[in-house]
């Protein structure tokens, strides 16, 4: 067992996959030099520039070339430097990678992994902070995971590389160096689409993912100590597909659901979770299905005061829990 940060876990997942299977390559901006977050540190020395490919600054080409290479025996891990910069590649992801299998009636498939550091809370301003998971979770044919722990990052990234479909791996960048976690020495994967119970509870189900999972655990601890409220925290980890069964099972037990997400309130992925609970879990509910998210302003303004004001945090989550608990 070794203690690793999430960033080291991401590095190790790719490194081990490239060792395991010579078809795996990484490609993206600055990856040759190690990448802006150092996720590919030492890759050129180990694997050479043909398997750790510095691309021109052109996101549609990064994804589009990865798609083409995946049709001809290569398993590319494409890195989009910040999720905010995936928008120029939106067409390649949505029109091409996602639809290739369906439109060819299952005769072509597109086994690419697209990594994107995402999320706010790091003074990244409006273009290094966005949550993009709702855009891609909306699209049949793509799989989307949101990771925020070293263990999940490594296991889900490995699953993405081995998946025959295009998988978008959203790595919350505020979690990159948040803490160290002991990881198994042996190879392991985590299945895409399976949520994890982070804290057991009986009064409220709190469904979340990404950095909000860490904030939610703090809030759950606070209300447990101060109010005696027992909150069950579920980390979705995957938003497409997502673990509806696990969520509904929890709501059945607690009767109350709070969905916490970092993205804008309107149309964020948590809205889908809330709607599903309202429709399929109606008989279980003893209070309103509640959402806590960022307000509908561009995420995130640069000044710390502005950014802190809009993002959900443990205090805001604590308040939301107390309100829901009072029903």
């Amino acid at each position: 067992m070794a203690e690793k940060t999430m960033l080291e876990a991401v590095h190790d997942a790719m490194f081990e996959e490239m060792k395991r299977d010579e078809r795996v390559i990484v490609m993206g901006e600055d990856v040759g030099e190690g990448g802006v977050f150092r996720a590919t540190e030492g890759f050129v020395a180990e694997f050479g520039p043909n398997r750790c490919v510095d691309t021109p600054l052109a996101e549609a080409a990064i994804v589009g070339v990865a798609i083409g290479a995946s049709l001809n025996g290569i398993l590319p891990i494409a890195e989009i430097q910040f999720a905010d910069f995936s928008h120029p590649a939106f067409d390649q992801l949505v029109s091409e990678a996602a639809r290739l299998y369906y439109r060819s009636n299952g005769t072509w498939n597109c086994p690419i992994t697209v990594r994107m550091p995402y999320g706010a809370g790091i003074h990244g301003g409006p273009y290094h902070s966005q949550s993009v998971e709702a855009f891609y979770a909306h699209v049949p044919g793509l799989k989307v995971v949101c990771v925020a722990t070293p263990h999940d990052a490594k296991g889900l990234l490995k699953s993405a590389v081995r998946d025959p479909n295009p998988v978008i791996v959203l790595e919350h960048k505020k979690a990159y160096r948040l803490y160290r976690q002991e990881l198994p020495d042996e190879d392991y994967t985590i299945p895409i689409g399976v949520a994890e119970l982070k804290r057991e509870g009986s009064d409220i189900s709190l469904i979340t993912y990404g950095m909000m999972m860490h904030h939610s655990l703090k809030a759950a601890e606070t209300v447990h100590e101060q109010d005696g409220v027992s909150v069950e925290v579920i980390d979705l980890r995957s938003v497409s597909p997502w673990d509806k069964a696990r969520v509904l099972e929890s709501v059945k037990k607690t009767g109350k659901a709070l969905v916490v997400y970092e993205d804008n309130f309107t149309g964020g992925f948590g809205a889908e979770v809330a709607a599903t609970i309202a429709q399929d879990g109606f008989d279980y509910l003893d209070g309103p299905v509640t959402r806590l998210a960022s307000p509908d302003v561009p995420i995130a303004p640069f000044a710390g005061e502005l950014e802190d004001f809009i993002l959900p945090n443990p205090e805001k989550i604590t308040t939301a829990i107390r309100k829901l608990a009072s029903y």
Partner: protein
Amino acid sequence: MVSVKEIPGAMGLEREQLLDLYYKMFLSRTVAQRERMLNRLGKGPFAITGEGQEATQVGATFALRPGHDWVLPYYRDIGVAITVGQTPRDLLLALLSKSEDISSGGRNMPSHFSEPKLRIVSGSAPVSTQLPHAVGVAFAAQLRGSDEVALVTTGDGGTSPGDTHEAMNFAGIHKCPVIFVVENNGYAISVRWSQQAAVPDVSVRAAGYGFPGVTVDGNDVLAVYGAAKEAVERARSGDGPTLIEAKTYRMVPHSSDDDDRRYRTREEVEAWGKKDPVVRFQKWLEEHDLVDRRKLDEIQQLAAEEIDEATEYAENAPKPAPESALERVYAD
């Protein structure tokens, strides 16, 4: 009698190969005409074809090794699909969106050719998204140490999207074995070339990507073949991409939903009709005593039989099961 190889402009092809070229062009034309007819008869809701561009499509593709090299066609490329081995039956099954449609099982629109066995990569409708894919296919061949090349086509409108620039730039940097063919028919639906680009020949853009670009007469099948052959040799030997601009003309409307009388004069269309590439190549073969009337009848009869058989088969083939719309969204 002179050997074929001594005929100027025969590009080193043997008589049988020249006749095969002609057959593929004629068959492509026949399929396109049948597709439009079936659409007008109300049997298929949409048809999109490229009559007039057969010399470019067949000539360029003829330089490849089918099943070894890759093609990433655009929606006018019946001639590309035919040349690498799709049959009239394959194409009409797609036109009528039948279950057996090898390209998509009725999921994609007609003329969105695909077949892994023939290395035809499935395409979409947003224009020129296939160019980065072609570069990726070629890049993968390089990484794997294979001598496969990729040929990708697009129209003149297809020279404008950002994907085209990004693809060519990437290919130039990595010297990818890819051949970009622009089938410049002068119109992106109704938008003239002068509104698409400020240069007369788009092939000059290749210089900006560090590889050669040539403009050829796209209605001269042997000229296109010659340019493609050279480009394939360059690609295969590790010298990187080539941009081939083939100047041609679409003799029909953009699609079954278009009326080109709104934007093209009949005089212009008729003038290009006199440069019909299929007729032009037939005359060339006749002038060089490579075919006689009897041989031409034989070839044309063969195409007619093939298209009739294909029509009957496709019309009688079953439609996809409605509930199969939910299947094959994700690979297992």
